[in-house]
C-alpha cells in the first residue's frame, strides 16, 4: 500500500515541479518549491513507515527539512518584498 502512496506522491511532485520550472512569476516558483518540499517530507515519512522499526533516523531528517523549508520560504518572501520592481 505504501507503493500506491508513493505513486500518488510522484504525480504531485511532477505537478509542483511544473509550477517551479514554468513560473510565470517568482512568487509562483516559490509556491512550487514550497510544495515540492512538502511532498519530499511526506515521501520520507511514507518511506520510514514502509521500513517500519528499522527506519533509523529518517523521522529526524523530516524535522530538519520542515524547519529549513519554512526559513527558506520566509527568506524568499522578504527578498521578493524588498526587490520592489
Amino acid at each position, binding site marked *: *500500500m*505504501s507503493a*500506491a*502512496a*508513493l505513486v*500518488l*506522491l510522484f*504525480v*504531485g*511532485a*511532477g*505537478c*509542483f515541479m*511544473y*509550477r517551479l520550472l514554468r513560473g510565470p*512569476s*517568482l*512568487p*509562483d516558483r*516559490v*509556491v*512550487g518549491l*514550497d*510544495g515540492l518540499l*512538502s*511532498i519530499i*517530507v*511526506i515521501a520520507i*515519512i*511514507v518511506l*520510514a*513507515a*514502509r521500513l*517500519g*522499526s528499522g*527506519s533509523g533516523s529518517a*523521522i*529526524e531528517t*523530516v*524535522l530538519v527539512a*520542515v*524547519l529549513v*523549508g*519554512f526559513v527558506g*520560504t*520566509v527568506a*524568499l*518572501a*522578504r527578498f*521578493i*518584498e524588498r526587490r*520592489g*520592481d
Partner: protein
Amino acid sequence: MNTLSGLFLIAGSAFAMIGGIGSVRFPDLLSRMHAAAKAPTLGLVLVAIGAAIEIGTTLAITTLILVVILQLLSSPVGAHALSRASRRQVVISLDDVDDLSRDEESD
C-alpha cells in the same frame, strides 16, 4: 503493513497530490497558494498518523507529533508572508474589496 495505517498513508498522499494538481490548474497566484499551502499540510498530518500507527516506537511518535505541530505553525506563516510580499508585483484578480491597500492609503 497494517491496513489502517496503509489507508492513512494513501489518503495523505492523495491530499498532497490534489494540492499539486491545484497548483497547476488554478489561474492566479493566490488561488495556487490556496491549493499548495493547505492540502499538503492536511496530507502531512494524515501520513504522520499512519506512520505513527505503523512504526509505534515512542521516539518516532513524539518526533512525528513535533513535525506536525511545526508544519501546522509554519505553513500559514510562510503563505501569509509570501502573499503579502508579492501582492503588488503580480496580477491578482481580486474582488473590488482590497482592505489592505485601503488601510495603507489611510495611514
